[in-house]
């Protein structure tokens, strides 16, 4: 396994009025198998675009992404995705949602039922299997989304603000769950977030992006996810080291936001035209 190689990808969107948006400009990144990587950056810096390219939903206007030495040309079961919300199939029960991938692949029923049971236990939803998903709370739904993704046993899990729609407390619990899953499954995880704290806590590597054109400006190596595997999450987040890093990254993001707003409010697209 060679992980994911992002090789000088650029993405230019052409607007209907003729203007161009450089959502990504020559972005390169190597992600080792088993790494947990968080991606942070001001709104509009191309995070979602990057993730959609990794998932194979978009093809970059230039450059390429390779996963295990294969050029990514479309979505595939080896790269699972967890969306912010609303991507569960509301006409199916929790069980059927989780077993969706194996069922599509024609796996034996008994096998996927057993796997589903196991996953329900891991994400703390034992006994909820027969419920329709729309009866679950937002946090529970995201746990189903995680389980559904894991049931398919992908190499890489891509997450676009998976906890963005949750309240602060549920969010902390879910961060713990993601770390636990990372530890137990050893999967490669790439996670986009708007929360600096979350990015530090869930990234042994933190990628900071800047807009116009979308690019990578920082690539931190961080000890916090590994620390959190052995120590209490709150202690990790309260440690002087964590707080110092948080302030550093926060002021960096602030600076970028200032820059964006500094030249007066621009109308996106018009300035590029």
């Amino acid at each position, binding site marked *: 396994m060679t992980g994911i190689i992002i090789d000088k990808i650029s993405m230019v969107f052409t607007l209907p009025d003729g203007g161009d948006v450089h959502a990504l400009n020559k972005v390169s990144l190597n992600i080792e198998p088993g790494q947990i990587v968080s991606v942070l950056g001001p709104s509009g810096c191309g995070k979602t675009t990057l993730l959609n390219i990794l*998932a*194979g*939903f978009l093809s970059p206007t230039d450059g390429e992404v390779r996963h295990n030495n294969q050029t990514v040309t*479309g*979505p*595939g*079961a080896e*790269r*699972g*995705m967890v*969306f912010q919300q*609303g*991507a*569960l*199939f*509301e*006409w199916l029960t929790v069980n059927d949602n989780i077993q*969706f*991938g194996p069922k*599509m*692949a024609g796996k034996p029923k008994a096998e996927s039922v057993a796997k589903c049971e196991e996953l329900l236990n891991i994400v703390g939803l034992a006994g909820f299997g027969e419920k*329709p998903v*729309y009866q679950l709370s937002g946090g529970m739904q995201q746990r189903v989304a995680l389980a*559904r*993704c894991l049931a*398919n046993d*992908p190499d890489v899990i891509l997450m676009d603000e998976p906890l963005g729609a949750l309240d602060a407390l549920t969010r902390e619990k879910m961060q713990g769950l993601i770390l636990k899953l990372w530890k137990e499954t050893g999967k490669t995880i790439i996670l986009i977030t708007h929360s600096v704290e979350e990015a530090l806590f869930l990234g042994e590597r933190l990628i900071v992006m800047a807009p116009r054109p979308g690019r990578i400006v920082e690539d931190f190596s961080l000890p916090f996810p590994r620390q959190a595997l052995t120590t209490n999450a709150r202690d990790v987040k309260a440690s002087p080291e964590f707080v110092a890093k948080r302030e550093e990254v926060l002021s960096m993001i602030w600076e970028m936001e200032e820059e964006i707003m500094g030249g007066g409010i621009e109308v996106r697209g018009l300035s590029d035209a």
Partner: protein
Amino acid sequence: MREQKTPSSLAIWLGLADNSFTRQKTVKFGDESAVSSGRFYSILIVILLLSAWIITSVFGLIKPFYWPTIGGTGDRIIKLLSEGFRNVPLWEHVGISVYRVFAGVLSGALIGIPLGFSMGLSSVARGLFDPIVEFMRPIPPLALIPLIILWFGIDETAKIALLFLASLFIMTIAARSGVSSVRISKVHAAYSLGASKLQILRHVILPNALPEIFTGLRTSMGVCWGTVVAAELVAADKGVGSMIMIAKNFLQTDTVVIGIIIIGVIGYIIEMFMRFLERVFIPWKGKG
């Protein structure tokens, strides 16, 4: 705490007193949910109308030519039930109309749903059918009756063809908007879980479009029910519509009135039936 006399549950049911929830509201005008059912007044108006009918019947205030007496109507119902109308049992008149509606709606759905799906999924299909669908959409089905009679005559095929057309475009548009209402993240999620195009169609797009297809079926049922009665008024020897038309020719106002009541009641039952099916088959509606 202020002492408050709790109104009886009968008074609440009748809508004469506010329920415990509304009672605490200080702002009621403009809050639709604070307007009670007013059931007492519903009962009142029905009783009033019935009494008016009884009184006019007893004293012979309205000529039966314009509006039947209550006794006459009762006798006529018994006669219709026992002897039928013009040698055809009453249930057969009703049954044939209902049958025509179902045949029309189902055939329209059978063609319309795949058509709508193809329009939502392929530019070729969209390009081909869009002008036709958009052109046919605003034409009331009744305006097609003359053409249908020229093409198919006035037999059974003609009526079902008319209802088929009435339902076809409703179902096409419903299925098409069902496809376009699919949230892209669901489709993406399914692809990332390894689903093929056909599996996406069967396991994501179809279930996602079901609520809209069902709404289409309901609308279709309503429109077709209206259309069948009107079509039977024009040309038919069986069916509720033809029954009231022929009754009119014989100046049987009571049969006309009974026919109208039947039309209303059946239309209501169809609507309730469809809502029931919807609750049973798509409990997830509006919960995505």
